[in-house]
């Protein structure tokens, strides 16, 4: 057999089965299926309760989801690397209170400076997490679980029994949480703007792709010459900074902040990311999917309220949804893998 002949031999059957292509498409385009589910829920609920689609209720949902979506987008970067950051709720709480405290002491602090300080607090928290994971080699689950308590502890120590309320906040800061332009809330615009920016970065810049590479194959990333520790550190830094910013927005939106603000929010964020098809095994997912996951959970939550479903069922349905998202993903990819193996065995 000549070389040309061997090279032109079909080593694999040329076309995958129809069902497999369909499965593969579904796996790759989770944003599409998420949007479809979202549409069905919105339309279904509004058929029963037409005012579900009222301008006010839509605005409420968007405001509610903005902060969670922002946090989800930040966490996605960390989860892409097969890490987790459970400390974001505590970072958010710390940033919200410290910035609020700043306003109560110096009412004339410029808004931009307040935002910068919030982000700085987040960066610091992210740096601690990043150092623990890269330099200290602590598994991120353990590292950020402990910083969850540590940051919250610092918060309690600082706050004591105090509480920030809306009266100490300057007018031009509160607008950040309640104001809107052409009907679009500022908060949603900030969240959406950051989402687009990050989506563009993750897709079109070397650093962005390296997050995916690290989560997909840690050793492979090292062998490809990627500075893995630096990249991991920067991911935690980014996630922390976003949590810090989310803290400032939280303060602007709710006005009143105490030591337990944002407590437990990290679990909602993890849930949103998972529902938005960000893989807990790392390497796959998109910030758009993650934000859609956050939106879907928020819409379902408010639909359940409007439909007068009891609180127990609200939580149970959220739980079932997360389970469905994970098992669905696992089953789909396992089916895909099995079909691939079967095809290869036919060779």
């Amino acid at each position: 057999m000549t070389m040309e002949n061997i090279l032109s031999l079909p080593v694999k059957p040329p076309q995958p089965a129809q069902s497999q292509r369909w499965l593969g498409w579904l796996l790759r385009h989770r944003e599409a299926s998420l949007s479809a589910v979202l549409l069905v829920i919105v339309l279904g609920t509004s058929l029963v309760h037409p005012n579900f689609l009222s301008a006010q209720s839509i605005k409420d949902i968007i405001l509610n989801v903005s902060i969670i979506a922002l946090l989800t987008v930040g966490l996605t970067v960390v989860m892409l690397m097969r890490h987790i950051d459970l400390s974001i709720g505590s970072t958010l709480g710390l940033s919200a209170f410290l910035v609020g405290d700043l306003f109560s002491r110096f009412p004339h602090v410029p808004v931009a400076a307040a935002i910068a300080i919030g982000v700085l607090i987040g960066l610091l928290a992210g740096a601690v997490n990043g150092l623990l994971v890269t330099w200290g080699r602590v598994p991120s689950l353990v590292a950020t679980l402990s910083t969850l308590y540590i940051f919250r502890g610092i918060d309690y120590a600082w706050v004591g029994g105090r509480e920030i309320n809306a009266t100490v906040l300057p007018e031009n800061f509160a607008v950040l949480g309640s104001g809107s332009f052409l009907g679009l809330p500022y908060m949603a615009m900030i969240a959406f703007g950051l989402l687009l920016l990050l989506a563009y970065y993750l897709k079109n810049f070397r650093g962005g792709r390296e997050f995916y590479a690290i989560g997909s194959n840690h050793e492979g990333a090292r062998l490809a010459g990627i500075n893995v520790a630096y990249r991991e550190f920067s991911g935690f830094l980014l996630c922390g900074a976003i949590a810090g910013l989310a803290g400032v927005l939280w303060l602007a939106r709710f006005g009143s902040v105490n030591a337990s603000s944002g407590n437990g929010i990290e679990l909602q964020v993890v849930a949103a990311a998972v529902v938005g098809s960000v893989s807990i095994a790392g390497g796959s997912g998109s910030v758009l999917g993650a934000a859609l996951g956050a939106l879907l959970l928020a819409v379902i939550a408010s639909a359940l309220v409007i439909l007068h479903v009891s609180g127990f069922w609200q939580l149970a349905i959220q739980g079932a949804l997360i389970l469905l998202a994970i098992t669905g993903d696992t089953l789909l990819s396992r089916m895909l893998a099995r079909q691939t193996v079967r095809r290869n065995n036919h060779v």
Partner: protein
Amino acid sequence: MMQAIAASTALTPNLAPALELLAARKSFGAVAALRDARLHMLPGEVHALLGENGAGKSTIVKILAGVHAPDAGVLKVDGRAVSFKTPADARRAGIAVIYQEPTLFGALSITENIYMGRQLTDRFGRLQHRAMSAEVEKLLQRMGVSLDPARIVQGLSIADQQVVEIAKALSQQAHILIMDEPTAALSKLEVERLFAIVRRLREQGVALLFITHRLEEVFALTQRLTIMRDGAFVMTGLTAQMDAELIVRHMVGRDLGNYYPRPDTVPGAVALKVKGLSRRGVFKDISFEVRKGEIVALAGLVGAGRSEVARAIFGIDAADAGEVWINGLPLNLGHPGAAVDAGLALVPEDRRQQGLVMTASIARNATLTMIRRLSHCGFMRVADEMQTSAEWGKKLKLKAHDYGANVATLSGGNQQKVVLAKWLATGPSVLIIDEPTRGIDVGAKAEVYHTIAQLLEQGLAVLMISSELPEVLGMAHRVIVLNEGRIAAQLSRDQMNEETIMAAALGQEESVV
């Protein structure tokens, strides 16, 4: 110029070497992986690197790849001395490595895999997706393979993943390509396609290092070869001037120590009988018998399916076909519990992972298989654990001051004794022991051998899986050699020596007895 190099082939002695490794040494802790490694690669040649398991081939690969730095020695690329601190350094010097298991990013596309870490960007730092995709398309065409650059790597066959790895190496302008057992997981057809690609690269002046256990591949593909043994260089020569027998002799030629008891027990009745055992894609049609008082060794290269056969007999992995009898009674395959009840014991290869609970005490570990027998209404009594384990410890000469201490505090040899005690306590009639002396020092090895010899005298039947030929030769009554999941040879004590076993393990048909 390419043609000129191709025409001169690899055999011109005054051609400047592409890569030279001189007197390289590397130790991991107290273990010397390389004592004196040498390598001399020319542009436009395929060079085979040969050696037994543990001869140091993988360490050489890791040094060339920039993963490990040698403790001593010189590495020269294109005549210049280099020292690699990271894999990126090796890549910049023009060395690309294709590992046995492809190191790709499953969730990313072929194009992204090829360009990861050195993507093309415009002046704003943005990735040039289209340009990269076009380059990859051209590259794949040049290699003569039809793969879609946008396809996700997950789900590609191992052969196609290797094609992606080679494409990656080519796109890096690598002129030294290291391939670590690339054919291990390929079908015949895929191997031929790989060879075609390799030959094409050789003609283009690339220097290729090819590591394989299959001698027929060495003769089919390579111009020169280097043989390693126990971490040291043995020889480099022209492949055309070698034959299989000579290669095998260079690979194994070493003195046998005499610390093997070489048990002289006379085998009795058949204790374990295996007939037609098969597991699709892993091993096929395995039939043999082990008698009371007999050690049968299961030899073969790593990946030949030895441990897998043991796992299937014990019922950990399912078998597709075949039957097993223990003391004449058929065994219900696929149920480890039934295997234990029938009198089978398995001492696994990986002590730390599969044999011991590293966080529990010596006593707890040694009595783990007897939980049911020792418990009273579901409760364990520490005193019982201690007493039973002390009995076995004495029999096996276990060196431990306190049986309540954590098992991780013991040396490797003594840990192995705890694993043995654990299984012997179930009163087995057949013992399967996988790599009994891996990672334990010479003194402890001898003790493990004497323990096994003692057990034989008590009528135990032993199936021993071992990669160490001296151990096989020193202990076994008979040896069964596996090659790629099939029995390549069954050798009796007077038929077996290093050459016959190695030749059978390498699949050299003529030596099958």
